[in-house]
């Protein structure tokens, strides 16, 4: 039997729970009454506000301007008025300013019209991507124009499109690939036009067979120079380092970027956003959010305006079950637990999960480490989580830094597999914070 490619070191196989929502077609959330649009929806510096309290804004209008190279513009997702500029805390505990926009319920949206792009230069297209505030939709929200600008002297070998979606529960990229196949592929071609790669690869995990088939049939129909690679199912294949290892067998050295091995990685969602930006002049003002989890009454994939309060999204999905114990924004492996349903959906929110309350344990949450070595075996970065955790617990942050704590990307494989249920990732986050001091 032919074995599908994957990355070699570490990784885990959590139950993927995608069956909860993967057959649900994307629905569109009607505009709620109020949206909260934060100025920091991306990695890097928050955007500078361009509007003030009381200003009227139009759908797609720029309301926040990128403040540095690694930053992104923010646009209004709706027609309405700014009622307040409020300090809020996002799911990832980042505090930033946010516009509270009262939606013009009579006339909330505008129509976007299509423009041809093939005659434009790569630079012009890149300018569009930057102007319309496109960021990675996979979760890390890295500004896309930074990723796509290839410095002089460097060339792109491969453009790798990330359709892996390895996090359990999440199905938004899956639905996107199925339902908007042509648009995604056109977005990929736009990105290829900008970066001029030698080859283009779409990596999709083999638990999305229908998406792989659909992509392949459209590609062959349109005769596009894109290869779709079916990958073995293994977490965290959606990380760009693991994805590149699996698809083009290159390892990005510590502290380096994909470009250093001649690759550019884009998420399918980002490719779609690039398509909308270039063809329709439409910034990211909405995105598909998977609403799932055992404690969620209805599981859905919802096209949601950015800034929608999570409470509104939950209400659209029929509310929560009584046994809800934890709310998570993003996937269960790397997403953030939160407690306040008044925080908004942002550009990087791929899912909202309601997880059941676990049976309360009488004793401590975790038992002592028995050095079983499982965390070491599953760490895709080749670190020793148990040793790092011990060092961090004993406040030896510098020692932990010496053992490459910074290589940790908090994928959660270690904590998932730890039989002692040690909060290993929490430890790594703590160590990084204290080590940086």
């Amino acid at each position, binding site marked *: 039997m032919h074995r599908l490619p994957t990355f070699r070191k570490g990784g885990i196989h959590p139950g993927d729970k995608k069956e909860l929502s993967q057959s649900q077609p994307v629905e569109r959330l009607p505009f709620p009454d109020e949206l909260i649009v934060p100025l920091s929806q991306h990695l890097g510096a928050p955007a500078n506000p361009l509007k003030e309290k009381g200003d009227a804004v139009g759908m797609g209008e720029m309301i926040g301007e990128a403040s540095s190279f690694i930053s992104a513009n923010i646009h209004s997702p709706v027609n309405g008025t700014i009622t307040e500029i409020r300090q809020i805390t996002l799911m990832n505990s980042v505090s930033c300013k946010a516009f509270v926009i009262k939606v013009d319920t009579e006339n909330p949206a505008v129509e976007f019209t299509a423009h041809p792009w093939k005659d434009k230069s790569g630079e012009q297209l890149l300018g569009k991507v930057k102007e319309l505030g496109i960021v990675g939709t996979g979760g890390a929200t890295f500004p896309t124009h930074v990723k796509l600008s290839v410095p002089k002297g460097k060339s792109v070998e491969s453009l790798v499109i990330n359709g892996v979606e390895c996090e359990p529960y999440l199905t938004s990229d899956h639905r996107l690939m199925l339902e908007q196949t042509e648009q995604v592929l056109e977005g990929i071609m736009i990105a290829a036009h900008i970066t001029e790669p030698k080859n283009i690869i779409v990596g999709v995990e083999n638990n999305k067979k229908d998406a792989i088939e659909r992509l392949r049939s459209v590609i062959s129909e349109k005769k596009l120079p894109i290869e779709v690679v079916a990958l073995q199912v293994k977490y965290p294949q959606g990380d760009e380092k693991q994805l590149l290892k699996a698809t083009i067998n290159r390892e990005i050295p510590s502290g380096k970027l994909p470009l250093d091995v001649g690759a550019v990685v884009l998420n399918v969602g980002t490719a779609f956003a690039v398509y909308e930006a270039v063809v329709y002049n439409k910034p990211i003002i909405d995105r598909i959010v998977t609403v799932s989890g055992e404690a969620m009454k209805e599981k859905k994939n919802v096209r949601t305006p950015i800034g929608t309060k999570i409470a509104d999204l939950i209400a659209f999905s029929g509310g929560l079950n009584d046994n809800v114990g934890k709310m998570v924004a993003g996937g269960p492996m790397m997403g953030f637990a939160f407690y306040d349903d008044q925080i908004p959906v942002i550009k990087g929110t791929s899912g909202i999960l309601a997880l059941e309350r676990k049976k309360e344990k009488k004793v401590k949450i975790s038992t002592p480490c028995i050095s079983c070595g499982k965390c070491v075996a599953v760490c895709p970065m080749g670190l020793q989580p148990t040793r790092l955790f011990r060092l961090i617990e004993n406040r030896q942050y510098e020692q932990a830094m010496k053992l490459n704590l910074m290589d940790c990307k908090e994928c959660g494989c270690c904590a998932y597999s730890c039989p002692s249920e040690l909060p290993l990732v929490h430890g790594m986050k703590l160590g990084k914070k*204290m080590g940086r001091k």
Partner: protein
Amino acid sequence: MNILFAFLVIAALALVLGFALAVAAKKFAVEKDVTAEQILAILPGANCGACGFPGCSGYADALSKGTAENGLCSPGGAKTSKAVSEILGTGGAVETEKMVAFVHCRGNHEVTAQDYEYRGISDCNAAHLLFKGDSSCKFGCHHLGSCIEVCPVEAIYRDEKDNIMVDPEKCIGCKKCTLVCPTQVIKMIPYRGSHAVACNNHDKGAVVRKICSVGCIACKICERKFPESGCTVSDNLSSVDYAKETAQIADAAAACPTKCIVTAK
């Protein structure tokens, strides 16, 4: 005869070896920093790091090289700084008042509302990573006791109400707890200070009232009615100016509606 031999042998051995060592001592001579060693002998040797140098020897080295200021050693206090200045010949001890740490919060889980149920490492900085702690008050104590762990002299303890307290008698003022505390709710106050405001919340009174029954609601009673107490309210929080503190502060403490002015002892 035998005794003579014995004597001679030992003497000869000693002579040869002594000579060899003398030569070697010349050849491998290394200059020693005498001043640093003298200073090190005077320092308390707690290696607490309050001076900002790696241990007492680091501070001693820096002092002897003139790269560090005298008087940084809080455990040693004025006595040490005087002795150091004598060695360095700079003259004049640096007057330092004994400062002790104080936890400006009495908001345990019973009196302060909680946003969520925290699960994770029992470390304040770890809890702070998740929405700045589980307490609804984002300025207060996380009650996980990281300061207890870093205290070199076991001066910090948890009282029966789960509040974190500092024993001013044991505290050597090394400031390690203030550095580890993610909310900076531990601040240094003078040892002589009798009272302190046990709150660190800068939110408006109405907000505080909602989440905590022992928080400062910035009602300004202490400031207005007891002008000589030393209490001043700024940025929605009362604080004691110890330069102006008088006995009147006891009355202010009694009058405080939320009883957040407490004795510092």
